[in-house]
């Protein structure tokens, strides 16, 4: 458990480190400006989505348009018209010209007069590409100037303006900030009040401002220069306004691209200046969120989304990622349109996207690792191994997939393996579940897991329950031919791995005999029970036929034997001398032959289950006494003393009296037969709380150790010098064993060669046939 927790911790730390590296990577990207273009795209898009916003009414644009040039001649027009315009718009708070006048003309005196008269006239300063600064021509003697330089982005779109340029020791304010100064009585030096570091040899830009465009080209109301000269607008129209004069005629004047220029519709420079002034007047410049704030929030977002992605399913993670990116877009837009704050969302989108990919890669790695595990689990189970090239299956998750054929080869191998497994299972099923044998399997919970058609049909017809192992055992017990307790066997099978078998006879659809093999096996430390039925009807029928033949033959032997035995007995009683002896031999041997036949028939009957067992309550004391007295004459003849060691009271036991008596009789007779003269045979009866035991103890020749297990086999005769002349059928002990076991008893043997034997018949007091 600790090991597992440790492993998980290592994996988590590794993931966290990779995620951290990813964040550093994103930050570097952002820092390097990689995301700038994407941010610009979103920035411009936000403007277009927001659309037009009414500009300040205080700004009037006067443009020298095509109509003006039609009337006043080709560009550039005479500066005397500018003087005239100043006169016509004298009520304005300020008049700013976005028209470069760095070269002297003949009309300069006229214009200089007008400028001087009005006072609040601002002329532009030209900053050439080589950073040359060109002031208006001195003859105009203008006292207010401003630069009209706007900052183009790398895509050429103008988004910001630097209001202050530092030229060596001078500050050059923007045209719009100068106009704003006149309009609000706040000179630029008071708006942009900050410490400046002068530099001797270069122009330094400062006081940047993001222009909040109120719309695309034409958003500002502009009036035609010629209309003003022609008095279309009364002087009162211009009172307290700020007039910006510029050029919009085709082919004349400068043009700028704005966020609204998605269709490349550029805006006259004069309108750009108007937008800058408007931004100042409405104080709605777009504020860019600080990079630190962005990095911190991006970090936070990365952590949250990483955890979310890792913990959710692929589908949910994808939906979540999409939702996050959409939310980022919405939040970004809301901040932009409501608060004029620009969040630069690229880093967030990029973060969410990369973190999603990273989480997906981790999951992908887990999935491949799971496939690797499946591979490792399945391959050992393939009966004939995996036919393909095992070497090709690279281990270790996703890195193992970076091979020539990548994950495709893994998929192909797994596909091959599963097909092979399916094929092998098919073969196994055919072999196991074919109706040659009855098959059923009980699981660790003793419930039926599998049963084939043969077993199903057979048991159903014979009313044997197969739902659980317990039901099965209970309902099968009456069909079992051997005297075994299946309940006990079942319990022990689940506790230890072993095999047992027994025979059952089923009546339907026809009388059939089955050998039932029960074996337990363990898979993953859980025990299962496999039960297989083999039809042994043919063998059983042969056995029965054999028994029948034996029975018939024996019977046919008995009739002549009756005559031989009967008449030889008569002769033995009548003849004298040697003839009498011959008759006695005939009689004795015929008796032995008959006894052999009878024992043989008894065994056959018991084996075939034809021996009727009459279980009654029997007092074994009496039985032992009867046997002892019946065999006393034979004992006397052989010089053997028979002792009956019987306790006062033993209680009754339920057995077949005749059969048991016959068993004890046979054992005692055997004991006499296999003891030298002068020894004794003890019949000892012992009563224990749970069982009764009859020991037949002799001090005879004993049985060799090698023969101990064989003495109960049919026709077995122990080979020993001392016993080779003793006549026997080799059936006596077989009969005793079968007869005792058919009553539910047990026969045991202990013997030391040369010292004697102890045969014990044990009857459990609780066994079979409690009447």
């Amino acid at each position, binding site marked *: 458990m600790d090991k597992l927790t440790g492993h998980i911790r290592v994996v988590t730390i590794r993931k966290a480190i990779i995620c951290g590296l990813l964040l550093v990577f994103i930050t570097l990207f952002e820092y390097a400006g990689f995301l700038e273009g994407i941010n610009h795209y979103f920035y411009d898009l936000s403007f277009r989505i927001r659309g037009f916003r009414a500009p300040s009414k205080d700004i009037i644009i006067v443009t020298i348009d095509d109509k003006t040039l039609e009337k006043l001649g080709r560009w550039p027009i005479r500066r005397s018209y500018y003087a005239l315009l100043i006169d016509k718009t004298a009520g304005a708070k300020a008049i700013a010209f976005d028209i470069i006048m760095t070269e002297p003309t003949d009309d300069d005196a006229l214009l200089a007069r007008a400028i001087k008269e009005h006072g609040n006239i601002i002329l532009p300063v030209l900053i050439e590409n080589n950073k040359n600064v060109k002031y208006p021509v001195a003859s105009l003697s203008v006292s207010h100037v401003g630069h009209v330089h706007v900052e183009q982005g790398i895509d050429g779109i103008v988004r910001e303006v630097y209001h202050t340029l530092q030229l060596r020791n001078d500050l050059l304010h923007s045209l719009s900030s100068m106009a704003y100064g006149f309009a609000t009585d706040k000179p630029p030096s008071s708006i942009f009040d900050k410490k400046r570091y002068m530099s001797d040899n270069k122009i330094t830009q400062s006081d940047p401002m993001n222009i909040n465009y109120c719309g695309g080209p034409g958003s500002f109301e502009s009036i035609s220069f010629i209309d003003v000269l022609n008095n279309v607008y009364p002087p009162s129209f211009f009172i307290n306004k700020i007039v910006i004069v510029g050029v919009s005629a085709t082919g004349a004047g400068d043009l700028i691209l704005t966020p609204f220029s998605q269709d490349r519709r550029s805006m006259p420079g004069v309108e750009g200046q108007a937008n800058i002034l408007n931004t100042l007047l409405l104080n709605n410049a777009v504020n860019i969120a600080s990079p630190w704030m962005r990095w911190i929030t991006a970090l936070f977002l990365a952590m949250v989304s990483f955890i979310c992605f890792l913990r959710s399913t692929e589908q949910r993670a994808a939906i979540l990622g999409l939702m996050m990116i959409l939310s980022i877009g919405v939040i970004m837009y809301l901040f932009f349109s409501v608060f004029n704050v620009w969040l630069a969302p690229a880093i967030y989108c990029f973060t969410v996207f990369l973190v999603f990919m990273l989480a997906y890669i981790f999951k992908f790695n887990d999935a491949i690792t799971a496939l690797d595990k499946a591979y490792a689990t399945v391959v050992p189970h393939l009966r004939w191994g995996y036919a393909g090239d095992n070497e090709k299956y690279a281990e270790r998750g996703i890195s193992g997939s970076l091979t020539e054929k990548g994950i495709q080869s893994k998929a192909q191998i797994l596909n091959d393996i599963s097909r092979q497994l399916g094929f092998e299972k098919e073969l196994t099923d055919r072999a196991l579940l074919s109706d040659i044998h009855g098959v059923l399997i009980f699981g660790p919970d003793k419930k039926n897991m599998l049963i084939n058609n043969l077993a199903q049909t057979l048991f159903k017809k014979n009313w044997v329950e197969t739902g659980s192992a317990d039901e099965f055992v209970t309902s099968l017990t009456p069909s079992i031919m051997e005297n075994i307790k299946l309940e006990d066997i079942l319990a022990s099978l689940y506790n230890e791995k072993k095999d047992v078998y027994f025979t059952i006879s089923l009546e339907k659809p026809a009388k059939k005999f089955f050998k039932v093999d029960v074996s337990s096996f363990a898979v993953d430390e859980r025990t299962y029970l496999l039960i297989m039925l083999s039809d042994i009807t043919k063998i059983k029928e042969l056995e029965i036929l054999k028994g029948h033949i034996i029975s018939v033959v024996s019977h046919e032997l008995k009739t002549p034997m009756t005559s031989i035995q009967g008449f030889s*007995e008569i002769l033995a009683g009548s003849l004298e001398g040697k003839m009498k002896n011959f008759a006695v031999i005939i009689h004795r041997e015929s008796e032995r032959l008959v006894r052999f036949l009878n024992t043989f028939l008894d065994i056959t009957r018991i084996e075939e289950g034809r021996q009727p067992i009459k279980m009654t309550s029997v007092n074994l004391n009496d039985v032992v006494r009867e046997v002892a007295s019946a065999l006393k004459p034979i004992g006397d003849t052989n010089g053997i003393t028979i002792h009956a060691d019987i306790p006062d009271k033993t209680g009754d036991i339920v057995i077949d009296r005749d059969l048991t008596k016959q068993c004890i009789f046979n054992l005692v007779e055997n004991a006499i037969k296999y003891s030298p003269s002068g020894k004794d045979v003890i019949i000892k009866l012992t009563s224990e709380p749970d069982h009764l035991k009859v020991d037949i103890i002799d001090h005879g020749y004993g049985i060799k150790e090698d023969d101990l297990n064989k003495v109960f086999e049919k026709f077995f005769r122990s080979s020993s010098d001392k016993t080779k002349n003793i006549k026997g059928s080799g059936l006596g002990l077989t009969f005793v064993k079968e007869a005792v076991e058919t009553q539910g008893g047990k026969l045991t043997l202990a013997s030391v060669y040369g010292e004697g034997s102890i045969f014990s018949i044990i009857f459990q007091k609780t066994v079979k046939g409690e009447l």
Partner: protein
Amino acid sequence: MPDNPFVILVVDDDPDIRLLLDFNLSRDGYEVLEATNGAEALDIMREHAVNLVITDLTMPVMDGYELIRILKESPDTSRIPLLMLTAREEERVSSEGMANPPDAYLPKPFAIADLQAKIEKLLSQDS
């Protein structure tokens, strides 16, 4: 014992067995009548009073089971003791299942002493 008053009917199709029984029973002083099957036995019994019947089972014309059934069902003969000769354990078992089973069994082959004991026991019960 020539004055032995008992008459025993031996029913068996095997002349050797009849001879064996006749010899032994006659020697013990019984009067022995012989029949080769059940039908003959019934004929004889119509003419002679019989004290005991010894019968085999497998016989032509009328077998031992039929004879036992007829004798045991008739009030005139039901009290006559019946000793059945059996060659197989199964025969004993099936005759025990009869409504009126025979009075005693003697498995073939038999010892003369066993024959004598059974007969004496049956006749003493009867009288």
